[in-house]
């Protein structure tokens, strides 16, 4: 149906990311460090004879050189070009021949690689990831092929998609100094200008065991898995220098920035972006609940009024991007035919003002908690989901058991907290507001 296709197009804009939530019945795991600094997490689950082998590297677009953006994501492609012992094109063939499937994703703060394999191929997965970490092939031939593929990816997801540039246009206005200001896919010009040495250096700097988490979930035996992990990973040398992490603190927003983007669309969109605290903080959880209050479910504040009662929007969303450094909450709406975006914006501001002025009812608060509980449960329904969650919790928070305890953080948020964070962070004087207008509406 047309609307659903439209919605998935809009949502696809945000999907460079992996989801960050966890919970289920208790998820048991074992974790330890190798001497070279690699952190290992293992979860045993025999319900299906499969296993997910994954490695998360603590490098994302924010670690990039501002003149060489797009590297972290580019490496997601480049690191399938093989290694000392794996010919070009063989990486995928090996996984497929083993009956597995695989993927990778890159975000602002990290890059993640995983394959799901029949459980008798655990060692294959370990071999592949150890080759990738130890001696991946990083050369100009691979660079040249993947450059073209990444350009097509950009055209597909950003240039040729309605609202495809939404995240990029927002972030570059929200952040003036912090690396979050450039898109994860980076600049095609930077990729063109980079030389082989740049790529080799990036690999040497970031793809080192002390910058990685090996996370494995599924039909394995902990003891024998440990032996195999030791075999493949313990002799990988640690890096020679400290891994670069930017210490740039984005200064507070100075006022409201308003702008218009003309796009190949028919329906205008309104985007309002506010700075929010980094993930893991008490306020970040409160902000997430606030965003659920605003736009998750048909009875949410924005959906109910904008989409349903007043039919000013075909879609209303509130997307909290909580990251390692201060993040952003993006409230957005796609206007219905013939609706002036300024009217939609006014509605959004009124609804946010209501949250600031009136404490939510106990019933509505209970609803929020039920919604969060449901969301959390869904993230760990598969070995792939569990492996990623375990890695995320360790890498970002140093506390892998959050996969079981994170729900408590949500449960400690009070109604007053939700009102407080609305007042503190959804500041109308300091935000970015973008209008997406059809090209035909240019003055």
């Amino acid at each position, binding site marked *: 149906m047309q609307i659903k296709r439209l919605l998935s197009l809009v949502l696809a804009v945000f999907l460079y990311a992996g989801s960050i939530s966890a919970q289920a019945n208790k998820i048991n795991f074992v974790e330890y460090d190798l001497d070279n600094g690699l952190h290992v997490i293992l979860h045993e689950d025999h319900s299906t004879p499969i296993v997910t082998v994954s490695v998360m590297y603590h490098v994302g677009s924010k670690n990039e050189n501002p003149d060489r953006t797009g590297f972290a994501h580019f490496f997601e492609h480049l690191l399938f070009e093989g290694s000392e012992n794996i010919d070009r094109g063989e990486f995928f063939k090996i996984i497929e021949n083993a*009956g*597995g499937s695989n993927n990778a994703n890159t975000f602002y703060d990290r890059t993640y690689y995983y394959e799901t394999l029949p459980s008798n191929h655990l060692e294959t997965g370990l071999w592949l990831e150890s080759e990738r970490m130890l001696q991946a092939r990083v050369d100009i031939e691979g660079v040249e092929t993947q450059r073209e593929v990444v350009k097509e990816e950009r*055209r597909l997801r950003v240039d040729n998609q309605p609202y495809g540039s939404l995240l990029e246009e927002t972030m570059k206005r929200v952040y003036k100094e912090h690396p979050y200001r450039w898109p994860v896919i980076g600049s095609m010009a930077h990729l063109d200008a980079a030389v082989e040495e740049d790529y080799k250096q990036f690999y040497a700097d970031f793809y080192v065991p002390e910058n990685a988490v090996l996370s494995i979930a599924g039909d394995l035996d902990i003891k024998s898995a440990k032996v195999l992990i030791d075999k493949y990973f313990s002799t990988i040398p640690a890096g020679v220098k400290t891994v670069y992490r930017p210490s740039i603190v984005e200064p507070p927003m100075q006022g409201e920035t308003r702008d218009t983007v003309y796009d190949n669309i028919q329906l205008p969109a309104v985007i309002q972006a506010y700075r929010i605290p980094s993930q893991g903080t008490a306020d970040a959880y409160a902000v997430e609940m606030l965003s659920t209050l605003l736009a998750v479910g048909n*009875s949410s504040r924005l959906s109910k009024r904008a989409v*349903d009662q007043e039919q000013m929007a075909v879609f209303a969303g509130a997307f909290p991007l909580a990251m390692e450094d201060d993040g952003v909450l993006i409230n957005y709406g796609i206007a219905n035919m013939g609706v002036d975006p300024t009217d939609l914006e006014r509605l959004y501001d009124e609804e946010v003002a209501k949250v600031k002025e009136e404490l939510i009812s106990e019933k509505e608060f209970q609803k929020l908690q039920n919604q969060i509980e449901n969301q959390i449960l869904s993230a760990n329904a598969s070995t792939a989901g569990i492996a990623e969650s375990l890695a995320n919790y360790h890498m970002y928070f140093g506390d892998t058991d959050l996969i079981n305890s994170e729900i408590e953080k949500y449960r400690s948020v009070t109604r007053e907290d939700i009102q407080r964070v609305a007042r503190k962070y959804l500041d109308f004087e300091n935000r970015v507001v973008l209008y997406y207008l059809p090209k035909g509406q240019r003055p």
Partner: protein
Amino acid sequence: MRIKNIIVALGITLCMSANLFAQEDFRKNAPKPGPAPSIEIGDSEVFKLDNGLTVVLVENNKLPRVSFQLSVDVPDFSEGEKAGYVNIAGELMGRGTESMDKAEIDESIDFIGASFQTFGSGMFGSCLSKNSEELLAIMSDVLMYPVFPEAEFEKIKKATLSGIAQTKNSPDAIMANVRRTLVYGSDHPFGSVETEESINAISVSDCKSYIDVFFKPNISYLVIVGDMNLADAKLAAEKYFGKWEMGEVPTLKPMRVERPEGVNVVFVDQPGAVQSTVAVSYPMDYSLNSSDYITGSLMSTVLGGYFGSRLNQNLREDKAYTYGARGGLRPNKLIGNFVASASVRNEVSDSSITEMLYEMNQMINEPLTEGELSTVKNFRTGNFAIGLENPRTIADFALNIIRYDLDADFYSNYLKVMNAITVEDMSVAAKKYLNTDACYVIVVGNKSDVAESLTKFDSNGAVDYYDAYGKLIEDTKMPLNVDANTVISDYLNAIGGKEKLEQVDVLEMSMAANTEMGELEFYMVKSKSLNTVQKISMGGMTFMKMVVNGFDGYSEGRGMTKDLSPMEISDAKVDAAPFSELNYFNTEQYNSVKLAGVEKVNEEDAYRMDLVRTDGASITEYYSIASSLKLRKVQTGEQGAVTLDYEVYKDFEGIMLPTIIKVSGMMPTPIEQNIKSVVINPKNASDLFK
């Protein structure tokens, strides 16, 4: 002695290193896998209620949640002129019952953190197992006592129309519309396309009758997956769905679908598109109960069903035309189809089609190697196992067995059957199902860049043009006795006449544009000698200046001045003549200048001219049929399309020039340049180029 010790010591070190390397020998090759685990399909239970509702239960207690899917096997029929009413009826059904209005339904669902949706083919809900009674109560109420509120109907209609308008900008939506129209025909149940007209023709009673006539338990299935046992499932099914009344459902005669004759190329223009979405497609009898279903499925995987497929390896890994190419057979009880598709950059649209057809023919003509067959079987086996992680897969299996009248052990035997398929079986399936002689080749993209290169694929050498909603565009009314020459000479006459224009040696212009940063000033000088000046400034401060004088030139900007390279100088000269149109038929400057058709520009009928310069640039221009004036120029480059609209022509010493130029595509926001002054053949012109 010391040296000997050192050498010995080194020798030991070397030996140790050698050992270390010897240990790492294991990295050289892929490790051998352990013994393959046995793959077991979980259990499902099937039972029927008295009213004919079939219930499938897959119990899985891993997580404390449960989902309920109600599927109605509505016979396929065409919505005709009211295309879209089935979807709307499904949506409307969930918008109010005799006891709850929409707000109450929404509130109740959200309160338990559940999800719930209604469709033209049924409904779906999921929740934590502790809330299943609340969810089922709502689902049951919606199913049996919907009221179809008029106000909600209007809302859905409005939202649907918004979505339809958006189709024009979505290459995927356009491709879906056009492909469906071509492959099935617009009269076929699968061939109807929602349009503004069809949606506006729908009434609430259409929606209500649809649900009344077709939503009957005797053609429906309730699939329960998750944390619920058989006893509870039986109780719940009876309690919430037992009172649903059975009834006769009309059976509708299926329509025959014909294969196309020859190769038919269809193009849909999406101006400014930077990628072409290309597809090869045709209808094909292929269903889950085809005798060679599994072979056809395996063959599809080889061709375009995984990363290592023929299509993906060729178009992405080898040639980097695309981010991903895929294709294969799609089964359907009524009529299946074949489709191969990819989104590729404009310049390789034709090459991509060549490669797609090549790969299809390779599958037909060259048998697979045993190695490749073995790899794809391994892939599918693993995939099958991974699919079993999700209990929904098991439910689908159970449902398919009932719906398609398959053997009870179809899925438990699936891998055995698949592993027995031979290279010959695959060849037979390829010959049967793949065909590059009778198909549709569909491209959604930028017409001026792409369309012409596609005629070679068409059996009649002619490309058909369709709009975003699957309607054929008849040849636009082209007046007789008009060709590229007449359009250009009419234009030159309208702006002053060839003679007068040729007397312009130097043309000096100042323009200004209001932007958020302030007023931007543009200054340019064009000349017959191809000397040129361009300057952009604001409030007297120069941002950028470029001067070309003969074979020399310099540029200034950000406090720096540098000489222009010979390449930059010749690039600057390309646009340096005051009236480039005087040279359109000079083959040293333009490879081709074609009259491409009639189109509307800002509601005005215009001739479309496609030009290709000798430096490779592609330009599209539009000249008003009524006034002969140039209305628009579109130049497509690396960054996309730059569009200039020319308005309010005024007389300058007998020469007509546009005083308003609207530029878009070059910067994030469009700008409107207004002419401030024009000087023709200024005195001391040579001073300007210093």
